């Protein structure tokens, strides 16, 4: 069997795709952890009061949970099925919770925006001094 045969090519492409995607992910994660990707203010409220925003914290936690849960579902599918013909289903309960979380986040952000806009102009006319 010659090295350039079809079967070897399929194995090569399989590992190549996984290696490239994992390398890109690791590069992004590494830069997130070392601060090369700006994460300043990720959890901070955009309202004039600043501080940690509960809406952002809950969205971050739920996003991480759903992402991890789905990856585990995929790994379980790979373990139990030799020929998986479709991606695993995400339970609709998770979708509902995620939709609620995003709604809470967006509502909170819209309320903050309204507060910022109604805060008024900070630069008052300069009088002669």
């Amino acid at each position, binding site marked *: 069997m010659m090295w350039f045969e*079809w079967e070897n090519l399929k194995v090569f492409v399989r590992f190549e795709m996984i290696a490239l995607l994992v390398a890109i992910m690791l590069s992004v994660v590494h830069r997130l952890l070392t601060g090369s990707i*700006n994460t300043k203010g990720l959890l901070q409220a955009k309202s004039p009061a600043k501080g940690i925003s509960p809406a952002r914290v809950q969205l971050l936690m739920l996003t991480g949970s*759903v992402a991890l849960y789905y990856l585990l579902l995929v790994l379980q599918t790979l373990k139990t099925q030799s020929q998986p013909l*479709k991606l695993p289903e995400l339970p609709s309960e998770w979708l509902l919770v995620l939709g609620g979380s995003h709604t809470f986040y967006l509502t909170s952000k819209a309320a903050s925006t309204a507060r910022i806009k109604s805060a008024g102009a900070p630069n008052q006319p300069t009088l002669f001094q």
Partner: protein
Amino acid sequence: MKQKSSFFERGIFYYILLFAGGVVGFIFATWILAGGAGVSMDNLKVAIGWGGALLVGLIGTAIVYRMYNGTINLTQLISEPTGEASMSRFQLLIFTFVVAISFILITVSNKPPAFPDIPPTVLALLGISAGSYVVSKGIQKDITIARTRPSISVSPESITAVPGQSVTFTATATGPGNLRYQWQRIVPGQKVAVDMPGQDQQSLKLIANTVFDANEFQCKLTADSGEATSAPVTLHVQEDRG
């Protein structure tokens, strides 16, 4: 001093293309020299497949390398134009990675590799994530506008003129939306700036008169997001003694 660029900085893609061409040539040579298999379409497909796979691998490696050494700048990957990190971008990035890696894992685990179906719930997940991102950007635009106050970028300057001479004060402003100008006059001895009727353009044009001597003028700028006023400048009107 000009920095000496590295091998990778001097057009890596040209080297990749050159190398990939060599790889493809090598595969063809191997395929022809193998001889026994004969020159068939199947062998040609495999050779092209190897060339394509190696090329994709090299380009992918170049992209990862450039991400690693910072040539591809990821600093603002999840940042707003204001410089603050964006939660909506971050969650979209996470879900994109999760679905992409799931798709590739399932695809390559099939023998032969085959694209899997995407269930409606996963599409809904991506829809929620991307929809939230779009709505969030719409809201963010309002915040950005609200935070971008108008400002005077070029202030007017004091002028000395003789009576009858035409003088012009000009202010240049920046800010979001519709900017409105109003020139104000401060008479010596008074500390209150008074709006000048009809003087609502970017430039204030006057005919120098002794009544304006030592008067100060300033431009008040108004936008939906706030106000700004230029520093007062003085008009000196001196009799021509020549």
